[in-house]
């Protein structure tokens, strides 16, 4: 293996944290969703790396599942964005605070 597993894990962790930071920092719904996608892609990276390290295809299979799942989620998310946009003319996530306490 050319790249040591630790590097892959380090890189994907960094990517994951960046994605998480995006989710935490942004209020725009689209940006939050993008952050989530980044996190999930970091997962895919780590899985592929680990799969290579252990010489097992399990991880790669999981990545395929993950991609399918992600696309389903994206579809739902986008539908949701459109739906929300119709409900209230904003995509600021914090604007939706009708329920609290």
């Amino acid at each position: 293996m050319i790249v040591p597993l630790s590097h892959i894990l380090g890189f994907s962790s960094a990517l994951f944290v960046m994605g998480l930071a995006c989710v935490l920092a942004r209020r725009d719904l689209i940006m939050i969703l993008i952050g989530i996608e980044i996190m999930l892609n970091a997962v895919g990276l780590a899985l592929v790396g680990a799969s290579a390290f252990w010489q097992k295809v399990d991880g790669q299979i999981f990545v395929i599942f993950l991609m399918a799942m992600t696309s389903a989620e994206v579809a739902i998310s986008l539908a949701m964005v459109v739906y929300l946009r119709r409900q209230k003319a904003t995509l600021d996530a914090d604007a939706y605070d009708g329920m609290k306490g």
Partner: protein
Amino acid sequence: MTWSDLYALLPVLVLIFGSTVLLMAGAWRAAFSTMVAYGILFSLAAAATAVFHTPGSHDVAGFFLIGGYSRFFSILWPIVAALTLTISFRYGADRGFSGGEYAALILFACAGMVLLSSASSLVSLFLGLETFTLALYILIAFHKGSPLGAEAGLKYLVMGGVATGLLAFGIALIFAATGTFHISEVSILDASNGQFHAVTLFGWGMLLAGIGFKISLVPFHLWTPDVYQGAPSPVAGLLATGSKGAVFAALVFLLGNLQLSRTPLANLLWVLSAASMLIGTLCALRQNNLKRMLAYSSVVHMGYLLLALLAGGTSGHTAILFYLVAYAFVNLGAFAVVTVFSSCATEPQSYEDFKGAGYRQPLAAAALLVFVLSLAGIPPTAGFMGKFAIFYAAIETGYTGLALIGILSSLVSLYYYLRPVIIMYMSGDSNTPSFSMMASEKSVLILCLIATLILGVYPGPLFDVITGILP
């Protein structure tokens, strides 16, 4: 994947088949009630299949372990789905739900729950979890006319997405550290696996955080009340019982065969359990919205279940399974009452809407009474037996401290469980509009009521079954 594998998964296949059929049939604009009725039939068929279908112990592709344990949940979750659908007849029709999608999504979610409950690999765990989560994203926001529903959908979507990320990353880390997804192998959490010890631990941390979100443990619980409140009541019932229960079923499997109390996780779970019991209880004290109260109460109950999980062993796992069954009927019943009280346009938002219900709607009120008493753990209800089993397990394994905290929280919780009772029976004049319940709603209430009481006074058979099927 062989034919025998498919044969073993028969109940799930029935669900998925039903779901697909309904989804397609929905294109022909069949009436809502017809579709829901078919949905009920499919889920009952799945349950019946599971009852009569005995494939024996079978490991499907290293993903799903089919056996008594999974069969148990293959019966339970379809029943929950069927009940959810049964209470939706009037509720959904009033709100213009499109029948095919609604029933199909519930069946689909149910399939996810069954899969999750029988997962033997982290991959299948993830897939099962995501299957019903995705369905729930839609179901929560299903009522298009409701701003609250949209808000709830948004919150669940965003939080769920992040939690999915955590979960997946945790799984990836564990895989990186151990090279396997299989639960029986990754569960070995001792320090022996050298260099990757840290990675494993971080992986577990992520995994637990993701799961903690799904079962709304403190501090990942904040979404719960909002989502419960915004979601359509039947869906909230499914969310509260099925989705959480399935996760716990998987957790028992995941953490079952390691001596939890000896691992570093024990301390963490201890704190999580205590915090969930206490904070959930305190937050529920001043709630005026029944659904939000139920949400906080579910936080508390997850704390109890975590306590049983921590205790582990046969007692702990028996307690969890029993509690899940009891909790399913009780909570579903409670949400059914909310559904029954929902008018065309709105759901009851505050306790005041139940004022005097004890005399206007005796059956619904009596049912809610029994359900909240059961949640409070007062005999002769299922909740008492469940709590008894949990405290039993806790004391047996020496978690007396947590048991005491549990006692304290159930004492305080009595106060908020009594509040709706007081409103219904002891607050004088009625605000409740007179309405007559549909037979379907009545039957769900009566079924849940009887189940709650029977499990409370004669839990022996269920305990025996559970003891027989534990992995």
